[in-house]
């Protein structure tokens, strides 16, 4: 069976790359646990992106590729945040891949 992560005593299933097996299992604690594993302290800036990704998925039913995420963030939150330098500073393993994982989304379409 797939791996699980422990979120406040609850066992939540993840796939072999660490993404949630079931999108509906997500809660903020999932992001807390995953970020701790990656040695990241989540700030408000991280949460803005995580929240943005969840809204994007809700509306379009896909996790955006990094290019699209960058553009969309820029449009919503301003050009100082809509660039890959800023996003990589928050999510060093890749803003789309890592942030999507924290947000409980599947791996973005177009990421290998």
């Amino acid at each position, binding site marked *: 069976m797939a791996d699980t992560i422990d979120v406040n005593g609850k066992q939540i299933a993840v796939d072999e790359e660490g993404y949630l097996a079931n999108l509906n299992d997500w809660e903020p604690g999932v992001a807390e646990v995953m970020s701790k594993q990656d040695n990241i302290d989540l700030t408000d800036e991280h949460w803005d992106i995580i929240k943005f990704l969840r809204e994007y998925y809700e*509306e*379009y*039913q*896909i996790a*955006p*590729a990094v*290019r*699209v995420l960058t*553009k*969309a963030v*820029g*449009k919503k939150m301003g050009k100082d945040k*809509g660039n890959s330098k800023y996003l990589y500073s928050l999510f060093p393993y890749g803003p789309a891949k890592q942030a999507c994982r924290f947000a409980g989304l599947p791996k973005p*379409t*177009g990421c290998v």
Partner: protein
Amino acid sequence: MSEIVKKFLYLNRKAPYGTIYAWEALEVILIGAAFDQEVSVLFLDDGVYQLTKGQDTSGIGMKNFSPTFRTLGDYEVKNVYVDRDSLAARGLTQDDLVQIAWEDFDTEEEVENIVEVIDTARVRELMDASDVVFSF
């Protein structure tokens, strides 16, 4: 990235949900968008059913991917065509189809709906003008 820009045509001829073609085609289009080519997407025959408004798959246990078409603009796909005869044969009009907006983030140029219904002659020209055709 390649310096040579080719004209890609994605030809969609299958209804959604009954087979996996429609979803697979959409994934390929989204992945292919990373290569900065000039992309056109054409819906022909039963493929026009992919764009119908109001799809609700909650009763059949499948992912509803019709909202995902609305991101094509974000993926810099600016040309989405629907064959007029295919719509007519199915009793459909453009009003039955979703709208896809497009916006250039740099110039802020906006197009409210890039879905264009075209006749046979335009379809033919589109196929002729394409360097590569991906069929689904």
